[in-house]
């Protein structure tokens, strides 16, 4: 596979190294002369000097025959443009873009650049997973399929505690796919009993999250 990477920062450099080790042909583009000189010491002819948002630089690097283009510069505008041009002008089938500022993710989406990967967003999700705020964690969103997977903790005074999965009264469009307990996780059957303190993974249609969540959260007494 021929991979063209734009931006030889930490991400681009390491990606290049890993992909070469896996036996792929890789070219990485870098526009900063000092950085280029440093990276060139190691990567030699695999790195080319030039601004990867310029069409002739991309063409010189052989974008027309690239199987995969990875845009990982520090600039979101550049990554969007490079990805857009790669796909729409040069017909590259697979494009991966880095989104530096998660607030820009919807720009990537709007201009048809996907997948866009935001390290900040990934770390935020991990933090959310480790330090849940409301006992509910979004594990995975599949916007195109209109599905999401959430993780919920079963409160001792909830409707669900002590019930079999088939009696949980979950709304249509939701399914318990896994129960996590002290001794590990398992895929439940209809007869499996949900215990207080369990963590359950539920796959559900977008929009019915509240109706699913209410089965697992405690009945909070209204504050006076």
């Amino acid at each position, binding site marked *: 596979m021929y991979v063209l990477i734009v931006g030889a920062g930490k991400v681009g450099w390491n990606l290049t190294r890993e992909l070469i080790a896996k036996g792929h042909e890789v070219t990485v583009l870098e526009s900063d002369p000092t950085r280029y000189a440093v990276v060139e010491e190691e990567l030699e002819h695999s790195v080319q000097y030039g601004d990867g948002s310029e*069409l*002739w630089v991309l063409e010189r690097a052989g974008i027309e025959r690239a199987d995969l283009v990875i845009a990982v510069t520090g*600039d979101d505008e550049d990554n*969007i*443009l490079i990805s857009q*041009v790669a796909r729409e002008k040069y017909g590259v089938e697979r494009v991966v873009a880095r989104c530096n500022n998660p607030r820009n993710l919807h720009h990537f989406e709007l*201009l048809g650049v996907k997948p866009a990967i935001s390290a900040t967003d990934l770390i935020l999700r991990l933090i959310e997973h480790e330090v849940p705020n409301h006992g509910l964690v979004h594990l995975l969103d599949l916007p195109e399929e209109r599905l999401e997977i959430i993780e919920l903790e079963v409160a001792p005074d909830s409707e669900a505690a002590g019930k079999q999965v088939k009696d949980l009264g979950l709304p249509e469009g939701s399914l318990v796919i896994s129960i996590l307990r002290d001794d590990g996780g398992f895929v439940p059957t209809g007869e499996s009993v949900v215990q207080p303190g369990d963590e359950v993974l539920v796959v559900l249609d977008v929009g019915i999250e509240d109706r699913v969540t209410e089965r697992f959260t405690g009945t909070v007494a209204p504050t006076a």
Partner: protein
Amino acid sequence: MFVLIVGCGRVGSAIAHSMLAEGNEVSVLDEDPEAIALLDRGQSEGWEERGGRFTVGTALEIDALLAAGIDQADAFVASTDGDNTNLVVAQIAKRRFDVDRVVVRVLDPHRARWYAQQGLQTVCPTQTAIELLEAAVRGQIRFEGVSG
């Protein structure tokens, strides 16, 4: 008409001046708070006193674009000093906010040409300079110094 100009350099500020003088509503967005000086320069009254709007913010921030009034804009000018920023923000104005008339400055002739083919109204000062200079070299046109 309501004109929103993103990027208040020599080009953006000059367009802002003439649009305001022609009686349009004009709003300018720039990331540099000092850029308003270009709008005040050579005028007895300040830009905002004359009815112009000025917002500080970066081009890709939706909140900044909204504060500058993008949802009411009839015309949108992308004139920051970055080609990529201009091309991205112009597409946002067109696709997300449905602005009627979007014009974008692109210095690189190749990108300007390709995005023009994709339906963006790009203006490429470099290409214009090349054509005028070539015509002048051939003797087809003659300048008495700066035109305009």
